[in-house]
């Protein structure tokens, strides 16, 4: 036997995709989904497979592309984070009706917590809304099996299938054995059939009927899909309490019941929550007086069980309605329910003392912050300096951390830096109030959903300064290439898209490129830009603040290393700590002034330009 590998959940999903014969893969990066595509690239290269893989500009673009490939008969997949599926929702809802020929698997990764997202939304509800099957894996190995099962199911029923791994699947690691790879020789073909591929409302009604029939058949199939849906009822036994769980919580509960030795509490584990495996659930429910439902992130199984008298869960207040269901939370839920029902209590007691002890230690609050040397820090510093009274609309990416520097006031969704800027402009200008507005958006986010908002703002004569923070990479999610840099997902060359040309093409006449490391130049350009937004014949001003990410491209980001030290001229005024907020600068209690943490300083030298006392100086002799 080949040695097992320790595989990241997203790597296990990638294994499943390669093993399932997936030929087309599209994605837009987003935590916790980002590692799936690079892992597929790695495996495809290692196996010498002919698989088309792209980082798409956004999730809707990704899904449309994968859908078309599946219509042409190729097994296709598309991956994203859960809020990405909102962007792709238009595509998903319609694709459900039309259906596909080759398998189409949509992988949408959820983030209960949330650890790295705007919402805790539950992808299973999106699947229910679209009326497509959804699979909810408990661990990496099951995710990999579900990829293959989902691809087969999608192809058999000609319906898109959603896989919903939660973050504890995506970012778990498990030992897994490699398996055989399915080589799909299917050639692309397209049979014209306008009543399906371009269905008008009349045909849509017919397609909806067909979709409902498919779901009924798949629901029956799911009741017998015992590899993902199973229970441990003893034949003929009756129970006071049974637990129904899906996904990650089901794994936690299996561990807890095993450790506590509780054979008196049966578990129904549901890996395919929609269409609901009714027959299996009925069998389980009829053997239990009460059912405790524990699932992430919302209450889908709980709704679908449809028994008000038996079911306990989120809707009855037994399970918290927000936050991740980590093991100690699940343990607490189960402990309380055991008590309420008069059942034998758990072995472990709750230890409140240790929590109080830790709370009493006054441990430092660690907030994430922009890296030492990050060009965004320079941009935010300059923006705030140039217009302290402006409203700062911003967007999704590393640069959301500009809020630590007071440079970010709003963050709604991808592209909203621009659309909220125009919305604010119109709201204030209606009252004839001059309100400066600066929108900040990253290069990748601009390509994702910036242009539609910019076109709209230009056309409707909004006035604001738009700073595109161009660090030439998608940094937050782990350094994926953007359309601006000329590298594709597999490392081959691409035709780079120029931000200057795109913004000019959107109708903006003021487009200037600045290196934010030149704080004075950045400041001067910002002033010019503000003047332009206020001029009668002016308009929206775009500044492209271009400087490479210090993590992705350190050599070019810091071509000349400037080592700094703090002199005794430091008056501890805290200006640098608050307004520049570099993690390498800290207040040194022993020295009674600011000091530099050499272990993390990037030697960018920017803080020299920031200190009002000129107390940060270059160390000449290295």
């Amino acid at each position: 036997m080949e040695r097992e590998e320790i595989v990241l959940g997203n790597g296990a999903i990638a294994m499943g995709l390669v093993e399932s014969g997936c030929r087309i893969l599209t994605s837009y990066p987003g935590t916790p989904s980002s590692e799936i595509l690079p892992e597929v690239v790695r495996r495809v290269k290692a196996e010498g497979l002919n698989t088309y893989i792209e980082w798409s500009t956004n999730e809707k673009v990704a899904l449309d592309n994968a859908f078309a490939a599946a219509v042409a008969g190729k097994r296709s997949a598309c991956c994203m984070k859960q809020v990405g599926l909102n962007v792709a929702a238009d595509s998903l809802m319609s694709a459900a009706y039309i259906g596909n020929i080759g398998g189409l698997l949509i992988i949408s990764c959820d983030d209960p917590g949330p650890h790295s997202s705007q919402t805790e939304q539950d992808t299973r509800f999106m699947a229910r809304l679209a009326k497509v099957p959804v699979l909810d894996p408990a661990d990496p190995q099951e995710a990999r099996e579900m990829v293959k099962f989902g691809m087969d199911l999608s192809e058999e029923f000609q319906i898109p299938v959603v896989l919903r791994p939660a973050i504890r699947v995506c970012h778990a690691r498990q030992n897994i054995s490699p398996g055989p790879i399915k080589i799909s020789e299917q050639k692309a073909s397209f049979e014209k059939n306008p009543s399906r591929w371009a269905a008008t409302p009349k045909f849509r009604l017919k397609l909806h009927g067909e979709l409902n029939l498919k779901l009924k058949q798949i629901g029956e199939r799911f009741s017998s899909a015992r590899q993902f849906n199973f229970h441990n009822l003893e034949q003929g036994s009756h129970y006071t309490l049974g637990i129904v769980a899906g996904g990650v919580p089901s794994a936690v509960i299996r561990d807890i019941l095993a450790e506590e030795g509780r054979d008196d509490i049966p578990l129904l584990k549901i890996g395919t929550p929609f269409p609901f495996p009714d027959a299996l659930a009925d069998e389980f429910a009829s053997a239990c007086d009460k059912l405790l439902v524990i699932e992430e992130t919302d209450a889908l199984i709980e709704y679908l069980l449809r028994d008000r008298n038996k079911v306990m869960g989120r809707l009855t207040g037994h399970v918290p309605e927000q936050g991740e269901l980590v093991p100690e939370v699940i343990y607490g839920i189960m402990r309380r329910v055991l008590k309420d029902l008069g059942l034998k209590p758990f072995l472990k007691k709750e230890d409140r003392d240790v929590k109080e002890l830790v709370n009493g230690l006054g441990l430092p609050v660690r907030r994430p912050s922009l890296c030492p040397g990050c060009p965004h820090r320079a941009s935010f510093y300059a923006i705030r300096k140039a217009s302290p009274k402006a409203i700062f609309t911003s967007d999704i990416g590393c640069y959301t951390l500009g809020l630590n520097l007071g440079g970010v006031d709003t963050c709604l969704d991808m592209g909203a830096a621009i659309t909220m800027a125009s919305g604010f402009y119109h709201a204030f200008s209606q009252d004839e109030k001059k309100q400066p507005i600066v929108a900040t958006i990253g290069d990748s986010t601009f390509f994702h959903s910036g242009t539609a908002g910019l076109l709209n703002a230009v056309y409707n004569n909004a006035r604001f300064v738009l700073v595109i923070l161009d660090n030439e990479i998608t940094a937050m999610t782990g350094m994926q290439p953007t359309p601006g840099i000329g590298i594709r997902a597999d490392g081959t060359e691409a035709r780079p898209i120029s931000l200057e040309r795109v913004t000019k093409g959107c109708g903006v006449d003021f487009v200037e490129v600045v290196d934010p490391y030149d704080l004075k130049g950045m400041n001067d350009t910002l002033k010019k830009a503000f003047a332009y937004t206020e001029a009668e014949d002016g308009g929206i001003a775009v500044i492209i603040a271009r400087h490479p990410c210090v993590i992705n491209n350190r050599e070019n980001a810091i071509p000349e290393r400037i080592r700094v030290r703090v002199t005794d001229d430091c008056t501890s005024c805290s200006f640098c700590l608050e307004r520049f907020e570099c993690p390498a600068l800290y207040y040194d209690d022993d020295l009674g002034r600011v000091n530099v943490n050499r272990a993390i300083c990037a030697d960018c030298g920017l803080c020299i330009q920031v200190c009002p006392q000129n107390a940060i100086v270059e160390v000449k002799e290295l």
Partner: protein
Amino acid sequence: MGTTNIVLCGLGGQGILFMTRVLAEAALDRGLNLMCAETHGMAQRGGSVVSHLRIGDVKGSLVQEGTAHLVMALEENEGYRNLPFLAEGAGFYVNADSRRFPREGLVPFFEKKGIRFRSVDAGELAMEIGAPMSLNLALLGFFAAFGDGPLSHEEIRGTVGKITSSRLREINLRLFDAGFERGSAAAEGRGGQYGNE
């Protein structure tokens, strides 16, 4: 063999994922099953980072509070933040200035729960050897000296050598050995750089 639950913690960039990987690969070489849970995304930008490693036949990747057999901290305050994970009789291994470890008021808690608390100045060791970013290896070597948990010193050291890139292998092993030497001295009562044993 029963389950071993390990919580590894510190700050973004300190090498927690690598340290977790060493222990996981060593366990796999022994033929043991394992599950890990990692921190990715925004928290990696300088925030608190935690990874969980469970060795044994388990289903879930997260360690439940009160059930960790080992907590290893690359930063002292992050170690304290994760105290709720410690089970009775657990081992607590921390990169900290041994003269000031543990901070005031914690010894009664450790003694009540029978927790073995031990510290090594891994940051200083790493600085001395000229690889400040590899303090994770120094803590790992220190830990390996106590024979705590299912993996032996040889297994852990062998895995460090096996999975480190050739460029870093020599320096990583030097750091590991330096940490091991400190740990051995402490375990034998030389140097006294450890807690309550």
